[in-house]
């Protein structure tokens, strides 16, 4: 499988705090890499660096073999990166449909109004918001907003999807629903996915590999089964040897 995203020796400080240090990651096309770690481990910083919201202190990020460091977030989006935010950020006063149409008109494909609407309707049906098309997005339930976030990121034509805790705050049923949505979207749009999650079940189920961050450093990157057995991971999470 070809390398799609490569993170090399990535580091970023905030004043005296080392948010990320010497993180390396290679993601193949079509892979799903889960990212786990305690709060403050550097997960969202990693996403912010890839998506262009932050500049790395050290290291490089390569998408499709070309560096995306220093590009603005909108240009990185146009290169094929879509992301969701930890707290949902819908275009609150716009309808659900308008949210997706806007994303489809920008992003990588930049569809015209007509094509954008068709794509939007399609995506909304996949994520289960088809019937709520004309609802004001600010009025959606949490589950609805989270699914809207995902649909919007995919609507940009993204090939790399960064999912930031899309299951947070959802009930077990909604989590299962979201898992299904993500898997369907992945299949229909040939996506490569990086997913930050605290909901372990979901993470283990969906990931091909899991990257474990601890205090800004990558302490393991392996298949879920190996991670569950990894002594370093167990140490950090359960304090077995501490």
């Amino acid at each position, binding site marked *: 499988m070809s390398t799609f995203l490569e993170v090399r020796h990535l580091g970023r400080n905030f004043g005296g705090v080392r948010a990320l240090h010497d993180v390396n990651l290679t993601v193949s096309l079509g892979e799903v890499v889960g990212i786990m770690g305690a709060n403050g481990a550097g997960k969202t910083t990693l996403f912010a660096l890839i*998506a262009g*919201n932050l500049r790395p202190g050290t290291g490089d990020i390569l998408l499709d073999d070309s560096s995306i460091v220093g590009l*603005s*977030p*909108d*240009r990185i*989006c*146009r290169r094929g990166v*879509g*992301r969701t*935010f930890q707290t949902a*950020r*819908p*275009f*609150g*006063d*716009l309808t659900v449909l308008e949210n997706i*149409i*806007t*994303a489809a*008109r*920008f*992003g*990588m494909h*930049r569809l015209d109004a007509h094509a954008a609407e068709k794509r939007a309707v399609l995506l909304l049906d996949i994520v289960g918001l088809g019937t709520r098309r004309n609802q004001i997005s600010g009025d959606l339930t949490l589950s609805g907003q989270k699914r809207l976030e995902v649909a*919007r*990121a995919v*609507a*940009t034509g993204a090939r790399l999807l960064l999912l930031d805790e899309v299951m947070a705050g959802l009930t077990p049923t909604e989590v299962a629903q979201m898992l299904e949505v993500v898997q369907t979207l992945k299949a229909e749009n040939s996506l490569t996915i990086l997913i930050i999650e605290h909901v372990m079940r979901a993470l283990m189920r969906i990931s091909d590999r899991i990257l474990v961050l601890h205090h800004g450093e990558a302490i393991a990157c392996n298949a879920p089964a190996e991670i569950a057995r990894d002594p370093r991971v167990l140490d950090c999470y359960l304090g077995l040897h501490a």
Partner: protein
Amino acid sequence: MTKATPFLLGLLCFGLLPLTGQDYLIGVSFTLLTWIALTQSWTLLSGFAGYISLGHVVFFGLGGYFVVLTWGILPYWISLPLACLVTFVFAIAISIPVLRVSGPYFVILTFGLAEFVKYVVMAVESHLGQFGRLLLGVPSLATLYWLALFLATLATLITFVIRRSRLGQGLIAIRENEQAAEAIGVPVTRYKTIAYGLSATIPGAIGGLIALRTSYFEPQQIFDPVVSFTVLTSAIIGGSDDVRGPILGAAFLTLLSELLWARAPQLYLILLGILLIVFVVILPNGICGLLRRRAAQA
């Protein structure tokens, strides 16, 4: 074409007005048209992108100053378009630092900037030994009226076209959530700069028109912050999400001003202040927003 009918009718009415020879009516309509043009241009950045400006007068004033400075050297049909260019360039020039600031700080920044420019112009005028300039040989009211009508129509058209364009959609996304807009590929910096520049253009000519109408120029007058305040209140009362809002708002305020200004200008402003507060608190989308909601519920 039914949606356009009220506009075309209005245009016809405005167009036929000078034929009545009623100078008072023409004067009031002239004022109304200039407010429409100012409010429509304000909407481009402040309404669509949500970067609310309390300093719109700075473009108005600079354009007016340019026309006044070149009076006698350039004919008005050259100096007015040039004034537009001057204000456009000025806006683009300052856009980089200014648009980095957002939210309420942008509001007070625009105010501070307008005042700053006002005091600079006052100092320049004082240095040049000028304490108010008289303009001789200004165009007739009818000429100024036609120009105002042209500019108001143009401003409305521009707002209309942009609202439906990708630029407009991007600006609205920026208003709703700038970070999310950036994440979906909206070139936020570029769009904001374009909107800011465009919003500055027509006010430049309007400033020139007003200077010619009063045939008198004084920095404190033409850079009066009440102009910014009126434009903002106009847009909030009328609603700024589509082209009807600014027209409604401007019409409402012009009517109010005609009723009150001659007798009690302070009362007019007090009322404006009250209206601003009421609309911000209860009807943030203005009259148009209310109408739209009623239509959606029906």
